[in-house]
């Protein structure tokens, strides 16, 4: 730089070469016109900057170069750091690290393995259905019961399925005159009116159980039933009587008794339920109105007491399923029952020593000998 002329004043220098000793006038809109001695200013500035040769950077050519070098090395003094040129370390336990080199901004760590992060290997089979699993806990894999009494799926059990007694619903119909009624199963119809005719129908005549009773007044009503019912022999509807009819799977059973009396019910001695229904029985007149059949009873065929082999109860045995209701029952004198035609092979009636001998009579008053067949007619048990 050349020495300038003393006291030279330069206004608004542009590309004019300045020399030490020049006085520079600076016109600033904010600070007004100022002037300073260029030589003094440079000296001050140099003092502020310092001696470039004192820089510890490799680049000492300019302050800017030194600053840039310092910035790239992270600042500080000493030896300038160099970038880390190896691959970054794998992920692992957190650590401050020992390297003096800096990492580049686009460095990439290796992809961690499954074990590095505690994950399952990529080839691990993930179960997608229950059959992929091992049933080591014994969970149910199939329905333990696939059907109940022939019913499958969402099974709804009825009384028959579990062998339970089906509840009987009683219905009383007091209509007089001609009555027609469609019978429902497991329903006991009481026709208490003064009937001239009674017509009953059944949706499934040969299956299930139907039952009804009716009163035969001074004139016996006309009774119309399905012809698919097997009717007992000598089934005659007489006036002034009450009839109870039970149809089991198409077989018709009949009880007849006086209009003024309830029937005698059997007593099941086996079960110990010694129940006797005597409702409606006129005191002192138990047997007199059972029916005309007992008027001409023949007592000549009484089974000798010595021949009674099984004391304890009246027993009906060796009978078919159609008359199984008779099995094990104890019948008291005056009881009536109907044998199914051709179904009963043998009747044995025994009684106990201290009681009168009981015999079975048919509807015409004839006594039935023990160990003989009975048919579908009405029978009456009588005390001798």
């Amino acid at each position, binding site marked *: 730089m050349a020495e300038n002329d003393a006291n030279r004043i330069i206004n608004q220098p542009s590309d004019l070469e300045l020399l030490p000793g020049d006085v520079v006038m600076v016109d600033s809109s904010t600070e007004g016109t100022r002037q300073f001695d260029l030589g003094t200013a440079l000296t001050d500035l140099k003092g502020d900057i310092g001696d470039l040769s004192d820089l510890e950077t490799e680049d000492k050519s300019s302050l800017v170069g030194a600053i840039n070098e310092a910035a790239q090395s992270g600042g500080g003094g000493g030896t300038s750091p160099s970038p880390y040129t190896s691959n970054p370390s794998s992920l692992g336990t957190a650590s401050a690290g020992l390297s003096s080199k800096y990492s580049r901004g686009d460095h990439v760590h290796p992809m961690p393995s499954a074990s590095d992060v505690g994950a399952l290997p990529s080839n691990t089979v993930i179960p997608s259905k229950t059959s992929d699993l091992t049933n080591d806990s014994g969970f149910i894999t199939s329905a333990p019961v696939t059907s109940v009494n022939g019913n499958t799926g969402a099974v709804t059990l009825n009384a028959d399925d579990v062998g339970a007694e089906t509840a009987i619903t009683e219905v009383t119909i007091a209509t007089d005159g001609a009555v027609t009624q469609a019978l429902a199963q497991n329903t006991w119809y009481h026709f208490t009116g003064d009937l001239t*005719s009674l*017509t009953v129908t059944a949706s499934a005549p040969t299956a299930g159980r139907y039952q009804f009773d009716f009163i035969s007044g001074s004139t*016996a*009503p*006309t*009774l*119309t*039933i*399905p*012809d*698919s*019912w097997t*009717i007992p022999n000598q*089934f*005659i*509807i007489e006036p002034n009587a009450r009839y109870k009819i039970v149809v089991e799977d198409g077989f018709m059973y009949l009880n007849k008794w006086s209009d003024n009396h309830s029937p005698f019910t059997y007593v099941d001695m086996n079960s110990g339920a010694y129940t006797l229904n005597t409702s409606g029985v006129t005191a002192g007149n138990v047997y007199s109105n059972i029916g005309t059949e007992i008027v001409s009873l023949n007592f000549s065929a009484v089974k000798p007491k010595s021949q009674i082999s099984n004391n304890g109860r009246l027993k009906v045995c060796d009978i078919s399923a159609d008359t199984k209701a008779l099995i094990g029952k104890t019948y008291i004198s005056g009881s009536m029952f109907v044998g199914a035609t051709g179904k009963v092979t043998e009747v044995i009636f025994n009684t106990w020593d201290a009681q009168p001998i009981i015999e079975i009579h048919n509807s015409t008053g004839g006594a039935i000998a023990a160990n003989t067949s009975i048919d579908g007619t009405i029978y009456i048990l009588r005390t001798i």
Partner: protein
Amino acid sequence: MLYGKFESNTFVPAPYYLHIRNTYVFNPTDEQYMCEGYKPLVNTAMPEPPEGYTYESHWEEQEDSIIQAWTLVEAPPEEPTSEEILSILLGGTS
């Protein structure tokens, strides 16, 4: 009322129940009996027979009924009494 009908010239009394259109009908009505071809039976009193004769009963079909009719026949010989039989066996006179 009792009913009957003739089948092949043979009298058949009405049963106590009828089989009508898939049903059994007990104590059928008069109309039901007649619809099944039965006619009411009309009983008549036996006339007084002459000496040595008697009447035998039979049924005769009319248009609306079956009437009890009587045929005059010779009366069968009377059976001897026990005493008469005993007297004959003992050689006495009857």
